[in-house]
């Protein structure tokens, strides 16, 4: 077939005119490799340290109802949209959006670069948390944190109280593991999708599941574990009447599944053209949620043990102790580990699990950046890994390997997740479903190649339900962030590290679209052809309306 796609044609127009000169794209070894890598990306720190606390604070057992509704009406549909974009347009986020955009492709490409920039900033601080987990993994063997776990974290480990040398003075205890994390991550990226990303996941994920499974089973048999599980699962059905509970459920699903900021889009672009997309997507989504339930069982069994040891009720414990995020992992858990039998093993299992879960997510985040560089500048995997890895690692080491690390991390994390990613999702759905009106074409693409068919419900979800819910969440978040300084931080830090980061993503996204492509981005053929040729046997298309 001759391949001379005009730059202003849509993908379906392009499909009839192009030929076989498109360079071979990297690929997973097969369906299992893709599924394991996608689960590795979705299962991250948020599954372990965010879900249990969010569930407890939003109705306990009753939270499962909005959580499941959110999974089915937002999580899985947006996951499928990511798959459709990446797989149909066979590119990293900027390339896929460039091809999606048609005549507006040069502008729509910015949506992809916005997602790349989000990943760039997340990688910078995400690696720092992994460095902490690596340090605490080592500390577990002699419980170096002692009795005062808050003081140890803030003063001894992060040295946030020591002004000597200024805020940018390096903290060796963080810098060394952080440097090692970056070396490992760049090495994985340099080996490419199959030999690097997939291979790392194929090793890390089984180890993670076994290690975390052992930890959860051990935790279930601790004294007081039943009290912890009672607290987590006893339903408060009155909570279902509160909009904030539903918002929390949608936010949890949204942040947990690695959707709408380029990861799943990029991963699906490395699948073969004839690939089952939706059925593996269901496996990934339910595996991610299963891990969250498992984490809930483990974390609340441990918290129940802690309450039992302290002679407190779970409600008293939740008021006096952090049950979420960094506080849960690096303050509460070390305290519990010190109190329990077999503490070294338990601590190593917990922090080892955090490290593995986080590392597989980190490499998926980096793949978004690396894949974009490969596509835009026609770089090899190794060159892209170094081009991306060196500056990202240096920024990460300067920003988070120093005494200013904790406030920086907290602020960037808050704004990039709750403003940046939500904004990315809304723009992605509006551009795809409303501006480019690709609902039917993507429906056809997903169904024609998959054994689990999607149709009108999916289109309604990503056209109406998800944009409306996420816009509501974004408005609430922005209102709260403007009403009072987040966590009491100064406006200078919030402006630079918070709003500044989001604005930097937007500006960089608009600027990067102007950089010329090293290969014609529109020289490709969307497959299968849409609309299907007359007379073609199309069982899937018959269900798409």
């Amino acid at each position, binding site marked *: 077939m001759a391949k001379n796609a005009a730059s202003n044609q849509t993908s379906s127009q392009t499909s009839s005119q192009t030929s*076989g000169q498109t360079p071979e794209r990297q690929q997973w070894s097969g369906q299992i490799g893709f599924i394991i890598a996608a689960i590795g990306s979705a299962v991250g720190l948020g599954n372990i340290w965010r879900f249990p606390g969010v569930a407890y604070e939003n109705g306990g*057992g009753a939270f499962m109802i909005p959580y499941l509704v959110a999974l089915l009406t937002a999580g899985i549909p947006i996951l499928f949209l990511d798959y459709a974009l990446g797989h149909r347009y066979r590119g990293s986020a900027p390339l896929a959006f460039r091809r999606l955009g048609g005549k507006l492709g040069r502008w729509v490409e910015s949506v992809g670069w916005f997602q790349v920039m989000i990943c760039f900033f997340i990688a910078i601080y995400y690696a720092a948390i992994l460095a902490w987990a690596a340090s605490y993994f080592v500390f577990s063997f002699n419980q170096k944190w002692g009795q005062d776990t808050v003081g140890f974290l803030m003063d001894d480990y992060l040295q946030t109280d020591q002004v000597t040398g200024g805020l940018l003075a390096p903290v060796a205890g963080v810098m060394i593991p952080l440097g090692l994390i970056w070396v490992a991550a760049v090495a994985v990226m340099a080996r490419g999708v199959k030999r690097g990303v997939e291979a790392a996941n194929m090793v890390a994920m089984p180890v993670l599941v076994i290690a975390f499974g052992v930890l959860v089973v051990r935790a279930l048999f601790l004294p007081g574990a039943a009290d912890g*599980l009672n607290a987590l*699962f006893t339903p408060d059905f009155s909570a279902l009447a509160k909009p904030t509970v539903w918002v929390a459920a949608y936010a949890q699903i949204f942040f947990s599944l690695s959707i709408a900021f380029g990861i799943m889009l990029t991963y699906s672009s490395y699948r073969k053209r004839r690939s089952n997309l939706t059925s593996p997507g269901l496996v990934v989504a339910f595996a991610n949620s299963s891990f969250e*339930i498992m984490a809930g069982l483990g974390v609340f069994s441990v918290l129940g043990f802690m309450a039992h040891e302290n002679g407190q009720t779970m409600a008293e414990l939740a008021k006096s102790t952090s049950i979420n995020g960094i506080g849960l992992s690096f303050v509460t858990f070390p305290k519990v580990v010190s109190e329990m039998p077999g503490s070294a093993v338990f601590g190593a299992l917990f922090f080892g699990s955090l490290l593995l879960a986080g590392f597989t997510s980190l490499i998926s985040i980096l793949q978004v950046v690396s894949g974009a560089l490969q596509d835009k500048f026609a770089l090899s995997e190794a060159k892209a890994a170094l081009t991306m890895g060196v500056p990202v690692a240096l920024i990460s080491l300067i920003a988070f390997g120093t005494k200013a690390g904790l406030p920086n991390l907290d602020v960037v994390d808050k704004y990039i997740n709750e403003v940046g990613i939500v904004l990315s999702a809304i723009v992605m759905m509006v551009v795809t479903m409303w501006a480019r009106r690709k609902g039917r074409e993507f429906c056809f693409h997903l169904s*024609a190649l998959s054994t689990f068919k999607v149709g009108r419900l999916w289109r309604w979800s990503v056209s109406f339900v998800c944009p409306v819910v996420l816009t509501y969440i974004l408005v609430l978040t922005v209102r709260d962030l403007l009403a009072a300084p987040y966590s009491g931080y100064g406006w200078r830090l919030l402006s630079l590290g918070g709003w500044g980061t989001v604005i930097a993503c937007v500006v960089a996204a608009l600027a990067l679209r102007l950089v010329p492509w090293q290969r014609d981005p529109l020289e490709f053929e969307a497959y299968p052809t849409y609309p299907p040729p007359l007379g073609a*046997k199309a069982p899937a298309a018959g269900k798409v309306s």
Partner: protein
Amino acid sequence: MTAAAVLMLIVALAVVPGGLVAATAFLALRPEVASYPPPDPGLPD
């Protein structure tokens, strides 16, 4: 554990890990893509 908590735990386990088992079984039983469209030898895979 209270009866209500046990019930919600069972529901959670039935739906979420149950959903994982069902999705995996479905994928194992129907791993192949639909017959349409046919392979296109002119395209890189």
